[in-house]
């Protein structure tokens, strides 16, 4: 008899992610609270076994159980419409789990203190997959290395070391204000009009941005060698 009672406690119900709880703040009975606690414990255990102990069944179970939830998240993402045009839901789901695994597996200092904490890693991983996909497509045409209009020649071959180039550029622009404008123009790819919109306290008019930009570019042209650039047209 005692043994059987023990068995009962090992049966847990794992609710499927349902659509948002429309009622929201309605009072929960004690039993529902207990139920939630049991689900919480079970869900958390799956995460712990899968991620911290590398239990393969638990990992399979985790993907099986939570991919519907991840799908529901995608459908509620603020950028879902663009995201879905760029890649499939299935790919985002697969990427979310892969990134989640990369970020968490076998991390000694990692602890999931609650199911919500574990899920926030998963949700952040999904968001990372979506945002990185959007970034790829948001890169302005002018910032691409392969447009036909790009005639500048990178003197150094390690072209992707933007950090170093940025440091050089900063050293050529002593004024903080010029540095920041150069940052907004060349690092963020903003147009002068957008600069004024973003930083109206700092830059008051488009004319002012044009003027500052000319000063910056002229100054930089005098130091072009340092910027790994030379004009290749004649």
């Amino acid at each position: 008899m005692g043994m059987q009672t023990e068995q009962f406690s090992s049966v847990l119900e794992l609710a499927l992610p349902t659509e948002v709880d429309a009622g929201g703040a309605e009072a929960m009975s004690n039993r529902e609270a207990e139920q939630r606690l049991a689900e919480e414990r079970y869900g958390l255990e799956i995460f712990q076994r899968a991620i911290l102990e590398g239990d393969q069944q638990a990992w399979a179970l985790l993907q099986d159980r939570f991919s519907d939830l991840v799908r529901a998240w995608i459908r509620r993402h603020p950028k879902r419409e663009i995201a879905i045009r760029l890649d499939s839901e299935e790919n985002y789901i697969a990427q979310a789990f892969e990134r989640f695994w990369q970020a968490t597996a076998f991390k000694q200092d990692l602890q999931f203190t609650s199911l919500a904490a574990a899920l926030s890693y998963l949700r952040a991983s999904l968001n990372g997959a979506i945002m990185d996909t959007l970034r790829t497509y948001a890169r302005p045409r002018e910032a691409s290395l392969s447009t036909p209009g790009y005639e500048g020649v990178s003197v150094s071959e390690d072209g992707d070391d933007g950090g170093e180039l940025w440091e050089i550029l900063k050293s050529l622009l002593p004024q903080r204000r010029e540095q920041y404008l150069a940052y907004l123009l060349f690092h963020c790819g903003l147009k002068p009009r957008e600069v004024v919109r973003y930083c109206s306290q700092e830059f008051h008019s488009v004319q002012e941005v044009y003027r500052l930009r000319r000063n910056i570019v002229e100054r930089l042209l005098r130091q072009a060698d340092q910027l790994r650039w030379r004009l290749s047209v004649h």
Partner: protein
Amino acid sequence: MLAFGEEGLAPEVVRHLHACMICQRRLMQFQSLSHHLLAQLYRSQCPDGQRLSFYCAGLLSGEEQRQIAAHVQECPLCAEEVAVTRRFMADPLTPTTLAPSFLRLATTPTGRQAWHGLPDGRPSAAWPRYYHSEEFELVLHISSSSAGRCAVYGQLSCVNAPLGGAAFEGRQAVLQPLKTVRKKPAERAAADTALLRLTAEIDNRGMLTFPTVPPGRYMLLLHLRERDLVIEELQIDGCRVIWS
């Protein structure tokens, strides 16, 4: 001239440009250098989308959180992404949100009716086993099958609707072998093929049958329409007892 690269140059500027070689060359230099800088520098200081997401969720180390916070102050593109991400992460959707119609009954098991319709075999002391949750009741039984294997039978019923077995018809029951192995995903894929996962379909009386189950530790999963029932650990090794 100041507005190079923008949509509208004033007509007199355009006229002058056509005539003046010096200005043409200067404009070309301006454009080329701008393009070079943009191509090399564009978002080179930004954390990638993953780190920025983790930053928004507060999952990075204190030092990293501070670095990225400083960057977000300066970078309008990351600031925009942070705003989107915060909105997304604040969404309350979690798996613990239950269907509002869910009913929970007393935890004390009731209705332990005798096991009906067991095909053959004498039960050992440990069997049948009763599993119970608020809404569901599951009785599991085993008998010997071929070559040291067991047949596992289950009857699932709904506490609220004792004759409602038809509601489970066609739902899947899964017996997953349990074995804790420390492996990376690449190694998992290979290991998964060796894994014997057994499935069965629940019939219209709520019955499920796994005809030949090798002894071992399993997890039993019942994929019902609205939720899953899980028995985390199920030791199948009682068959020998029957014959001793």
